[in-house]
């Protein structure tokens, strides 16, 4: 993270709210955000990690500054299978091509919802295409020079982990 830290707190709230909204509406299970923490390594906290990029400008009093951000949602296998089972009304207990794009769809929805609230904070934003990493002990490539904030969530299906990187060229 670079720039004013207060920007980052404001910036992260829409993503947390959107994630809660998506789980309540489409998974049928509320989730609880835990205390955010600075992440100092690149190891995913999950076995299936969905990633999406965001870029645009922050307009503060008519001064427009470019920013870049990345949203990550990481699921342990068991959480992912239970979430997929709830959303697709079928039981999944192993990784299957049918559920490959679910993580991407979840980050896509989070980003799409967050965009609306970010706009009210002065951010214009362009979403990238989501991607998915699957496998035990994988790492995540973060943009150079950014700090990563990790926000763990608890749910009835197990833990999941949101990560946000944000950098603004001030």
């Amino acid at each position, binding site marked *: 993270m670079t720039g004013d830290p207060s920007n980052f707190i404001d910036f992260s709230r829409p993503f947390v709210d959107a994630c809660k*909204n998506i789980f309540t509406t489409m998974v049928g299970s509320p989730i609880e955000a835990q205390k955010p923490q600075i992440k100092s390594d690149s190891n995913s906290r999950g076995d299936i990690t969905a990633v999406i990029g965001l870029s645009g400008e922050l307009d503060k009093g008519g001064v427009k500054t470019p920013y870049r951000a990345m949203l990550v949602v990481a699921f342990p296998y068991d959480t992912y299978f239970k979430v*997929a089972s709830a959303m*697709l009304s079928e039981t999944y207990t192993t990784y299957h091509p049918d559920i490959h794009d679910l993580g991407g*769809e979840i980050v896509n*929805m989070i*980003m*799409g919802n967050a*965009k609306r609230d970010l706009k009210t904070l002065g951010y214009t934003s362009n979403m990238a295409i989501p991607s998915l990493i699957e496998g035990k002990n994988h790492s995540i490539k973060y943009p150079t020079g950014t700090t990563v904030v990790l926000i763990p969530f608890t749910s009835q299906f197990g833990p999941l982990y949101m990560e946000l990187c944000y950098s603004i060229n001030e």
Partner: protein
Amino acid sequence: MALKADIKILVVDDMSTMRKIIKNMLGQIGFTNITEADDGATAWPMIENGIKEGAPYEFIVSDWNMPQLSGLDLLKKVRATPGLEKLPFLMITAEAEQGNVVIAVKAGVSNFIVKPFSAAVLKEKIDKIFK
């Protein structure tokens, strides 16, 4: 349900999990005749063939953001085709921006739904389209 359960529905989305979720919700609402297409470019010949074969689709549920042919471009093709000017067309999008709604309404969308949504919300939108 006032609508016939077997109206011919086409669900268009490039994400297979989302197609399955929408199909499941339509099934929960009571619909039984649902076909899937994995983007607008696949959906368009299916819509054309339905007309040629005398069994046209009666309701399109389409995602907005798709490769090759977007939901908006699919809608424009549908509306530009004689006989399909009033084909019920529900657009689904992940982006809750007012500008998108205006663009879709100008292009002739029947209704608009923003992800995430429940089967109850989907039913409400469908009821409004077909009332």
